[in-house]
């Protein structure tokens, strides 16, 4: 069963990566990043479940990670709002090489 969750994590990782690369909308990029993070956490916890006996250290790591992710997401969202007020658009202009 844990192998199933490991593979599920891999599938979600790939989907989130695709979204992160192809979506121009910043809110969607942020959500894709969050989903990517969730998939990494799923991977860790599935590993913890595989171990005998159950290994609580990945659980603690994921708890730490969840809090860190909320903090970064909050910053990202505020940054996104500031950008929207400035440019009126939810997308980034491509990196200018000037």
């Amino acid at each position, binding site marked *: 069963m844990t192998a199933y*969750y490991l593979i599920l994590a891999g599938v979600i990782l*790939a989907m989130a990566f695709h979204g992160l690369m192809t979506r121009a909308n910043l809110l969607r990029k942020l959500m894709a990043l969050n989903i990517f993070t969730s998939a990494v956490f799923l991977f860790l916890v599935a590993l913890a479940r595989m171990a005998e006996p159950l290994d609580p*250290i990945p*659980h603690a790591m*994921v708890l730490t990670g969840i809090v860190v992710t*909320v903090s970064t997401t*909050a*910053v990202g969202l505020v940054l996104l709002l500031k950008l929207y007020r400035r440019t009126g658009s939810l997308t980034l202009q491509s990196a200018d090489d000037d």
Partner: protein
Amino acid sequence: MVLFDLILGLLLVVLVQKCLSVTDLFGAVISFMAFGLLMAVAWVRLEAPDIALAEAAIGSGLTGALLFSTLGRLPHSEARQPIASRTVGSGPGYWLAAGFWWVSIMLLSVAFFLSLLELQAPGLGGYLQERLSESGVLNPVTAVLLNFRSLDTVMEIAVLLLAVAVVWSLGTVGWPAKQKLSLPLLVGLVRLLTPVFLLVAFSLLWRGNHAPGGAFPSGAVLAAASILLLLAGKTIRIYPLTMFWLRWVLAAGLLVFVLAGMSLMFAGYGFLVYPEQWAGTMILIIEVSAGVSIGAMLMALYIGGEPDFHAG
């Protein structure tokens, strides 16, 4: 039960797909929140109730609230706008970078799936069980977070405080927030629920010692309570003095944690090395201050800017 896992996985995949390609942002955010809730179910299936609690409260709940408040601050048209089918970037630099990523990720994912076969997952569960009695708490996750790997947790609280500092550096929000609708029902409900919230927060904090819970879910419940109070229009007036106290409440969790570690060091035990008979008490003190601070920090993140008492 295998069927249950299969359905759960399928739903997760469908929700990710919807979140990333449904036509409007509003629908995408809804799918994202549903994804978070189902992840909480997945955590329970993987025997990680601590994470399920944190995911439901922080990962899905608070992130969802953050996303919604962001959507609310965008104009209606933007939230309902369908995906524009244009490319993300242009120019040779972009295509080089994108191509590099695609190729490497494709190769990597093949290797990744193959490497899953090799994982043995020895884990530290057994080793941890032996030392758990020395940690001062009974819940192994709390023991890891606040004793065995407490340095990570100190730095994690620092990340939260830093996020508040960054959000504040990006601008101020007018205060008190104006309410468009008068919603007597919400006010009544909040009046009824606030004590319940406080009770739940306290019980989560207390339970953390021996069962899933602890400072982070408890802080998230506190933050939820204060966000509800805000939504019901129950804002306090902000004066310089209130800001002074707010700053100290925000910083308290980190300060108590670091200063506790340092005083232990100067007492001769070593940085964050709890003497065994005091470990439980010290962890409780640290957790209480961290819980209150985390509640305040999560609320500050939700507000999304430094409260400005000149604007109110």
